[in-house]
């Protein structure tokens, strides 16, 4: 009992104080009305939620989820082998490698994104080099496309996939992989049958840490996608700032939170199973 108190109560108090209470305010606002000058009028209404049913907003949600899913998948596909190989290096190098992975992300994200733009744009570095080498005749149109958005998102969220993956792959019991190989499983089979299920908690964690934030990371689509897509993050930001429609912005946020929680729960059910019960010997 004392253990529960010591470990759980800090987070519990924290969340109640700094999240539940503020969130309650947002919930309240979502049922109020926008004033003429963008203030909040104390007048109960469900209009904000009703307005959300417009196919326009459904479309925004779908676009956002599409981008988030794409980002998650590409982070996972690129990141898993990377985390696997890093975990496979000599243990004494691990700390350095991890720090080297994260250091680029301690620079300012805006500056980093501009750097990508410098690389990708029509007269950017990559095109210049490729043209010089004669590998292409016409400059490639890389910027302001879905490709650029995915590249930017994947790049920005990469450490959020790598670190949880690494931390679980690193503790994988090597003798289990040996046992699998010994029983005739090819490396691929071993990977699918043993490595993957045992590292599933890391995959789940990494995917959540990438998927959820990418629903709201609008500055990458804005900068690298040319701002031609409205994702849920922009929509909400626009309500709070450009249109100063806090009630509507709050309503969208509440729905976003609920939908994301649903997705997360479904995902955990689907993939996680009863992973708490997974013991080792």
């Amino acid at each position, binding site marked *: 009992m004392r253990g529960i108190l010591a470990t759980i109560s800090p987070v519990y108090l924290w969340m109640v104080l700094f999240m539940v209470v503020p969130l309650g305010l947002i919930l309240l606002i979502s049922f109020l009305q926008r004033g003429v000058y963008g203030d909040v009028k104390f007048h109960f209404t469900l209009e904000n939620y009703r307005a959300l049913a417009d196919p326009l907003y459904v479309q925004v949600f779908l676009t956002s989820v599409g981008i988030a899913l794409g980002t998650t998948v590409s982070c996972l596909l690129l990141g898993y082998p990377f985390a696997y190989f890093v975990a496979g290096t000599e243990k004494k190098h691990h700390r350095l490698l991890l720090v080297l992975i994260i250091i680029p992300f301690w620079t300012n994200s805006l500056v980093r994104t501009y750097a990508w733009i410098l690389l990708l744009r029509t007269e950017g570095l990559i095109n210049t080099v490729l043209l010089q080498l004669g590998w292409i005749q016409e400059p490639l149109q890389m910027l302001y496309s879905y490709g650029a958005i995915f590249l930017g998102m994947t790049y920005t969220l990469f450490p959020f996939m790598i670190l949880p993956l690494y931390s679980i792959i690193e503790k994988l*019991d090597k*003798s*289990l992989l*040996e*046992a*699998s*190989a*010994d*029983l*005739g*499983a*090819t*490396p691929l*089979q*071993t990977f699918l*049958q*043993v490595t993957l*299920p*045992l590292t599933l908690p890391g995959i789940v964690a990494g995917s959540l840490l990438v998927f959820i934030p990418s629903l709201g990371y609008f500055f990458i689509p804005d900068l690298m996608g040319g701002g031609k897509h409205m994702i849920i993050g922009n929509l909400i930001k626009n309500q709070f700032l450009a249109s100063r429609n806090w009630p509507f912005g709050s309503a969208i946020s509440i729905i976003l939170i609920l939908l994301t929680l649903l997705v997360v729960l479904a995902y955990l059910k689907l993939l996680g199973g009863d992973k708490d*019960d*997974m*013991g*080792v*010997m």
Partner: protein
Amino acid sequence: MAEQANIIVQIRDLQKVYEDTIAVDHIDLDIMEGEFLTFLGSSGCGKTTTLRIIAGFEEPTGGKVLIGGKDVKDQPPHERNVNTVFQSYALFPHMNIEQNVGFGLKMKKMPKDRIRKKVEEALKLVRLEGYGHRRPNQLSGGQKQRVAIARAIVNEPRVLLLDEPLGALDMKLRKQMQVELKHLQRELDITFVYVTHDQEEALTMSDRIAIMNDGRIEQIGTAVEIYENPRTRFVADFIGETNLFSGTVLSQEEEGVYRVQTSNFTLPVLGEGLEVGETVSFTVRPERIFITQPDQPVDVVVEATFKEFIYIGSIIKSIVSLADGKEVTVTDQAGMEMRFQPGDSVKLRWQTSQSLVLRK
């Protein structure tokens, strides 16, 4: 039986060095098809390492391994028709027992119902029927070990490597499993390479035993050869209990028999090519020594003082001491022992053929 068979595993000048430890030290060994070969040796002598090199988990520092005549240097573990029962079990924690045992068959893409049948049989063999749906962490130590055995044998490999597979079992189950493993080995005609630290197990089950010490093979041979004719002091001391004496060669009595002087007595021992004045060691097994009140004369009679009885069930050990305090162990079947009191003067006797000079 092993002599006529083909060689299935050849180990040539095998060596494995960890940073500061020589785990395997230039081993040469041929393992015959269908034989039951046991590695017996003290903790840390390199048994597991040797097995892991054969299985392909460890790359040798030097030398090579041939399986079925082919150098397996570039063959990854899953392509070697070799299965292992791991000392640490290495059960898959995310699979239940049934899935663990069926894993190898599933990898071979065997039809599901055949897998189920074979898994059932294997579980029956290790007396774990009905445990199929448990997770490894719901089993006791011995139960886990039995699952590891089932998981390996269900694949009927050409060579089965077993690393102390019965280590966690009680005597009773262990004896049963010994019989069953031996039975299985004969029936499936699989080569067993077995690691154990239980000499009785080694002696009863093996066709041949390789005694390892400090990364080297000290002696290899059948149970009788090893027990009756240990070639080194280490082997004599390691296999069974023994009494070790050392002394100086006084003279040759006849072909193969020398008279040796120890600090307590002078007596004839068996040996070959010894020189007068040489210092030698020789052994006498406790069960080949008789304690008597001084009476009929035999080849060897040594004066001693009785110290104590130790009771170990079917056997009674007597500890006696010689004039200079050296302790000698004598064993007797329980119920057969003479009743002495500590301090009693006794005589020890044995036949010359039971005292054997050792190489080193």
